């Protein structure tokens, strides 16, 4: 390194110099959302480089998929994003159905929307609570889990499992909803709605929370797109993209007739943002605060969708339909389908040689792409910002490592 002289334009800071230090954040660290290892190169409190190391949770899900039939692989999708297992089931089922060119019944379609959106609420609640935890406040986490528990209760009643559901499956769903479920779901939504204001008071508008998140980890839309980021991470940067609207027809057809607006800032406004706290003055589009806020908006959006789907499902008198056989043969060919999962666009790619067991199974993880951008966001931030940034990406290691 060439010596610096005082009027060198490269010098911007004068500071007490310290030695560079390599620090391991993880794999056992409270705020790495699982077994993620971040190697930080720090100069005092300032992080000059972050390198994520992944793979601690690698379970060869894709290899396993080459030895099971398509329906048998459903439980393995549960364990990818275990916080939104319903959405994972849906993504894989749709990909297989796309290759099989299979059409589920209308009733199943509405039920799938209902379940998937409930799953989204549950996932965003965890994301929100855990983000509070990353910033050092514990209470919102429990508030979020309290409500999530109720969703899990509902799921348990519907399919018997609380975390790994395997409920949505190729050709429909494993079972219809039990009697009285819809009423309980509506009751949940009614009591949940005012609680969102509580979350806004505790986090979104909290001065310290804003200070910790606004203008931190700013991601430009170009950067987000180039890294293949998706979901709230992409929309938090102001890119108007939502697979539920922009995806392939087999997926978008599911949402046909549903009214929803993509939660993204347009002309300085979020959809229906008059009902929510205003964007703080020092927040920049693409920072941690916006990513968080998009999630909060999507909770409301999903509630709306759930209400709509409840009506449609209740009105739909047709049969639910049976799932395909466990050993159903899949036509030769390949199909790739991306669905809008809570964490982002989850893609499933299926190559079949005509037998019941796929030749190749591929899961394109949204968190994988979202995490890859970490080292760009964390350059030059403080150590305390690293959990804030990683937390705002809302990653799930089960999905990244597969």
């Amino acid at each position, binding site marked *: 390194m060439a010596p610096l002289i005082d009027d060198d334009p490269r010098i911007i800071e004068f500071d007490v110099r310290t030695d560079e230090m390599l620090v391991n954040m993880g794999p056992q660290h409270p705020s790495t959302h699982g077994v993620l290892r971040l190697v930080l190169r720090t100069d005092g409190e300032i992080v000059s480089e972050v390198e994520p190391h*992944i*793979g601690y949770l*690698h379970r*060869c899900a*894709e*290899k396993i998929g080459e030895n099971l039939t398509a329906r048998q692989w459903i439980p393995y999708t549960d364990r990818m994003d275990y916080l939104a297992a319903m959405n994972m089931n849906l993504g894989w089922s749709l990909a297989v159905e*796309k*290759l099989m*060119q299979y059409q589920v019944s209308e009733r199943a379609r509405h039920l799938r929307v209902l379940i998937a959106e409930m799953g989204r609420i549950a996932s965003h609640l965890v994301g929100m609570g855990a983000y509070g935890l990353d910033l050092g406040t514990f209470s919102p986490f429990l508030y979020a889990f309290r409500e999530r528990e109720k969703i899990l209760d509902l799921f348990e009643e519907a399919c018997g499992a609380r975390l790994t559901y395997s409920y949505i499956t190729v050709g429909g769903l494993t079972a219809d909803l039990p009697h009285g479920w819809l009423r309980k779901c509506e009751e949940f939504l009614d009591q949940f709605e005012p609680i969102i204001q509580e979350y806004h008071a505790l986090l979104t508008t909290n001065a310290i929370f804003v200070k910790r998140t606004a203008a931190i980890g700013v991601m430009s839309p*170009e950067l987000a*797109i*180039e*890294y*293949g*980021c998706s979901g709230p991470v992409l929309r938090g940067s102001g*890119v108007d*993209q939502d697979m539920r609207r*922009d995806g392939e027809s087999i997926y978008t057809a599911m949402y046909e007739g549903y009214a929803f607006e993509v939660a993204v800032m347009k002309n300085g406004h979020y959809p229906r943002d008059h009902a929510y706290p205003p964007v703080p003055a020092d927040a920049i589009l693409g920072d941690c605060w916006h990513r968080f806020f998009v999630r909060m908006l999507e909770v409301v959006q999903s509630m709306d969708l759930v209400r709509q789907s409840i009506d449609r499902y209740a009105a739909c008198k047709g049969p639910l339909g049976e799932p395909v056989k466990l050993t159903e043969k899949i036509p030769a*060919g*390949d*199909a*790739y389908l*991306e669905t809008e999962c809570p964490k982002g*666009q989850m*893609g499933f*790619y299926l*190559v079949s040689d005509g037998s019941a067991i796929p*030749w*190749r199974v*591929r899961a*394109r993880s949204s968190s*994988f*792409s979202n995490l*890859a*951008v970490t080292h760009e966001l964390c350059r030059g931030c403080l150590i305390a910002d690293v959990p804030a940034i990683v937390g705002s990406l809302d990653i799930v290691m089960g999905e990244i*490592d*597969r």
Partner: protein
Amino acid sequence: MRGPGFLEQLEQALPGAVAGSRLDALDPWIEVAPERLVDVCRWLREKSAVRFDAIECITAIDWFEPDPKKAAKVTWQPHTELVYHLWSTASRVSIVLKVNLPRWKGDVPGQLPEVGSVAGVWRGANWHEREVYDLSGVWFVGHPDLRRILCPEDWEGHPLRKDYEQPLEYHGIRGR
């Protein structure tokens, strides 16, 4: 992506790059000559009418049947197929590129097949290529940092190859 017009544009811009295509498939795809892959990708991202600004996924498919009885029945020659799923945020369309590589470079077992890296075109391809290298054993020439990503650094073999055999033990841990 259906659109013979687009394919013609590509062929005009980069003659000889397109090795084949199938536009009536479920996901229409274009097969690209391995040595022209980076050029094609750069053209798709920067020059084409539809800017494919995001790379969603890179998949390697190992077309190889280890069971000799079944292998006699298959219609294809053993090869490794790379599938690139690209996406245009602007116009919300996707495109599929396929690249066929030999299973081993020069058919010498153990020599990884090589193809140009597109990490310079989309920075997001970096990790995807690392994953393909790690699990399927394809060497991406020009990749800035091609290391294993999911498996440990000292892991042997590439698990998603069909002839992969799990090691008997790894650092004293029983494998099978």
